[in-house]
């Protein structure tokens, strides 16, 4: 069957339509769907060529959306589909096997968000006051399932400048009839004594067990540690990435800024980074679809995933 080959433009277009059609879907899932489409339509002659093309596609998608999840999700997808024995002499057979595994992978990760929500909502007790940062769809799902479980709680959301994503989160929570208050980023220290627990999402989970998330997460973590409040992170497993930053500087530049900024601006020193790194010593627990993990267990899971 002859499918038309996907050029870069069409790739990115496909990706963006995916994201637009279903705003709830994580960007990594959209990226993987795109990769799967590309795989179906790819016309390379060898498996090596196929892999190279896929790697290139992942690079192109990263340029379109510079979040860590796209990069990690893409790499995991590649590993997952090539993990089988591709011993068939016929290339189309191999491709069929790979496509099948790709579909399987996609199905698994589409369910990951609900798995995480199921694990986490039991940690929210009745009457709890929760603090969260910026807008995260996973955290929203968690709070949704907790509310569905007839729990009463109030939420404080940080405004999260420069894009005021916190306000969107507040609107969504109000639609769910959850009492919510928006606080300034600077008011985190002020509000910390009132809250019982802190839940944040993550854009990427690194090898040490630390997380990469919207800027402002690090100071939230430091504050909660100082007040001895539990700091929980909710993330799906495809966000696990093979980085090991030792401090803020070690996070690669391509993740720090939005994709458009990276392309447009010459001197990145002038730009303000959009993400920061939170070390594992400040995190109490991570809720993932692989289970509830301590930061040191993340590395074990990563070794299992990647080795």
């Amino acid at each position, binding site marked *: 069957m002859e499918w038309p080959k996907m050029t870069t433009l069409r790739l990115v277009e496909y990706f963006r339509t995916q994201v637009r059609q279903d705003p709830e879907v994580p960007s990594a899932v959209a990226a993987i769907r795109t990769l799967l489409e590309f795989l179906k339509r790819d016309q390379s002659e060898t498996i090596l060529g196929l892999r190279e093309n896929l790697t290139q596609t992942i690079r192109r998608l990263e340029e379109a959306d510079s979040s860590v999840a796209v990069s990690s999700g893409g790499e995991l997808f590649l590993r997952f589909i090539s993990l089988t024995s591709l011993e068939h002499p016929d290339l189309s057979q191999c491709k069929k096997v790979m496509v099948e595994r790709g579909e399987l992978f996609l199905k698994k990760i589409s369910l990951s968000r609900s798995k995480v929500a199921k694990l986490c909502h039991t940690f929210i007790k009745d009457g709890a006051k929760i603090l969260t940062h910026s807008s995260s769809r996973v955290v929203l799902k968690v709070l949704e399932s907790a509310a569905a479980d007839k729990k009463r709680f109030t939420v404080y959301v940080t405004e999260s400048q420069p894009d005021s994503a916190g306000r969107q989160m507040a609107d969504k929570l109000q639609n769910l009839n959850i009492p919510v208050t928006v606080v300034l980023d600077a008011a985190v220290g002020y509000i910390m004594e009132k809250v019982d627990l802190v839940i944040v999402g993550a854009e990427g989970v690194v*090898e040490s067990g630390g997380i990469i998330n919207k800027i402002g997460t690090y100071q939230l973590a430091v504050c909660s540690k100082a007040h001895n409040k539990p700091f929980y992170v909710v993330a799906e497993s495809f966000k696990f990435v093979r980085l*090991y930053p*030792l*401090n803020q500087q070690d996070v690669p530049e391509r993740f720090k800024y939005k994709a458009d900024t990276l392309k447009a601006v010459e001197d990145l020193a002038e730009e303000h980074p959009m993400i920061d790194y939170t070390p594992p*010593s400040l995190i109490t627990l991570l809720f993932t679809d692989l289970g509830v993990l301590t930061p040191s267990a993340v*590395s074990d899971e990563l*070794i299992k995933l990647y080795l």
Partner: protein
Amino acid sequence: MYHRYVVVALSRRKPNEGKELTKEEKQRLRKQKKHQKKQKERKNEKGPSETEKDKTPVSLLPPPQPVATQKAPSALPAPASAPIPVPASAPFHSSPAPSPADKPAKSKAELKAERRARQETDRAAKQPGSSSSGIKTKVPLSELNPVVKRLPEHVQVDDPAVVKRLAKKLERQQIPLRSDYGYKVSLFSHLHQYSRKAPLTQLLSIPSTVIHPSIVRLGLQYSQGIVAGSNARSVALLHAFKQVIRDYTTPPNEELSRDLVNKLKPYISFLNQCRPLSASMGNAIKYIKKEISNIPSQCKEEEAKTKLLTCIDRSSLVNNILCEAFEKSRKFRVIVVDSRPRLEGREALRRLVQRGISCTYVLISALSYILPEVSKVFLGAHALLANGYVMSRVGTSQIALVARTYNVPVLVCCETYKFCERVQTDSFVSNELDDPDDLMVTRKGKTQLENWQDVSSLGLLNLVYDVTPPDFVDLVITDLGMIPCTSVPVVLRVKNLDQ
């Protein structure tokens, strides 16, 4: 009064055993003891609660038991004394004591009947007998031994029974025993302390037929500190073993795989006496032993030898890392921190300067002075323990602690063959005490501590290793990649699957 009787019964029993028992009697007694042991095992499994009820008849037994209990793990005759108080106490009229006396007169059938009767009485005695806490504490100890690991001998130097056992073992292998030197600080009295001026080789007879000359040379190099550093020691060990394998010939009627392993045992004891084995050396030896025992019996000698030699063939680490980085034209400056008495930093400094890297040299006391200008700390490791602790040269945990307070990342560089299954949380339990005379320093012709042995309240402590908790270490760099300190058990698991 009661317990005095039992003690007398004990002492009366022993000399009888030597004189009047014949071979058959001894065999029978042995079988009896085995049987009793098995019964106790079964009884223990059933649960001690039901036996708590009948305490009275043997409640007076506990006093003599603790004396025997302590001996249980160490001396072999001790388990023999375990069954003795039981029959001696409750039905002491039917104890085995009379049997040796009238043994020669009995026929086989009568002996059998007697044996059965004794077993019955013992079983009856067992019901109230095993309820005594004394027996219970004794039996679990000997039964637990297969479950609870014995402490290694080198951390039990203050236990005379262990030392005696070690001496016996070395005598069997014809290796001289090295004696401890000088006053030992009480907190570390459970470790060996040797003097460098009395090497083990002086006590060896020449020519030594038991120990291969390359092993003798290696042992001397270890004890004098000529070969130091865990990588260097392991590599030297493997080279020496290669030589041993080359010179080895299988004696007739023996299998290479079994005989070679037996030959290696005295060598390892000898090297252990010269300088306690490191974790990496332990792993290397385990690997070699495994390879040797895996050689199929049909393998011809030459073939087997070449196979072994090929499989052997694969702090220096931190130095290599820095030199390689320098070659990649990264711009950096190195500060080498050194400490007495070994001053190993000087060698590292020399090698770095030869490559052209700009270096600074400080002693460990100046650590807090230079740390504010340091961006990363690189440390080598002697071994990485299963709970994430890093065992390394003494002073390492100090550096990690101070670096943590200054928020400087600490990176430990360690190859995976140095990972070991041991768990340790402090530097006391298992360590190495070096020659205390090394701490003496001569300045301007005067040695202040020259007569330290004469001062009764003075002890010199020269520790070799210390243990760093994983909270102070940010990253471990291994040949498998970068891992956090707590992931050591995962790597061990993965490696075991590979092998």
